[in-house]
């Protein structure tokens, strides 16, 4: 999951080397904490969260092997 999110986000930002993803596994959720360079925040969120929504939809279509939902949190 971590690699999937990194793959998408690195293609969206100006500073791919500053993209960091931490994966936290819970019983019913997999949480992906995403950090990007401050100037790239808008690039992963988009107008009215349009890009963030598309990222979340695509990440949730991945096969996880179980029924856990994947939550993407964009952290400052």
């Amino acid at each position, binding site marked *: 999951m971590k690699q999937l999110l990194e793959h998408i986000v690195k*293609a*969206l930002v100006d500073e791919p080397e500053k993209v960091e993803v931490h994966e936290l596994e819970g019983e019913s959720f997999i949480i992906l904490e995403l950090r990007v360079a401050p100037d790239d925040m808008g690039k992963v969120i988009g107008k009215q969260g349009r890009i963030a929504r598309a990222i979340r939809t695509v990440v949730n*279509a991945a096969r996880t092997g179980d029924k856990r939902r994947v939550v993407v949190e964009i952290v400052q």
Partner: protein
Amino acid sequence: MIEIETTGRTIDEAIQKALDTLGVKRNNLDIKVLSEPAQGLFNLIGAKDARINAKVLFPPAQYLEHFLAELIKYMNLEGTVAVEEDEEKIIASINGKRIGSLIGRRGRTLNELQYLLNTIIKRQFSGIKKMIIVDVEGYRERREKTLTQLAKSIARKVDRLGEEQVLEPMTPQERRIIHLALKGDNNVITYSKGEEPYRKVVIAPR
């Protein structure tokens, strides 16, 4: 333009010029230094610019193909990607077993993926005008048939009842299919209302 030579006072300056001219990101360029800069006497006499050759590694269609193949792998799905390109668009077709999760309910995932790829390609290649279309297992064609049939059957209903009907929210591509399906219809007219992404087609009596 896929390959250029640029000059600058430093190698970095020459690279920056190549990035600006080609409109791509640094990691999509193969750079060869043709000549190192030389300072010269008092920075004037005999000073020489740096000269580089910059080559785009992946042009848009190849970039897209490569990006999608990796994406599918990271999603733990199995599928192949084929791209076709013309003057206006690049079409990426994905085929594979159990790949339906990429389509999602009423194509939602597929449409979000397509939106994401259009954004990515515009960021990776500044100035590109081509639209990116993504298809999975021929879904777009099947959806086009379904929407055309839907448009015609609702048009008959509108004509019979004399009342307008509002369809569910659709993407611009899908709305276009409805408008085209009823373009020559003598009994009804079509228009869209609302804001993206909830914009809907209305079919009304003529």
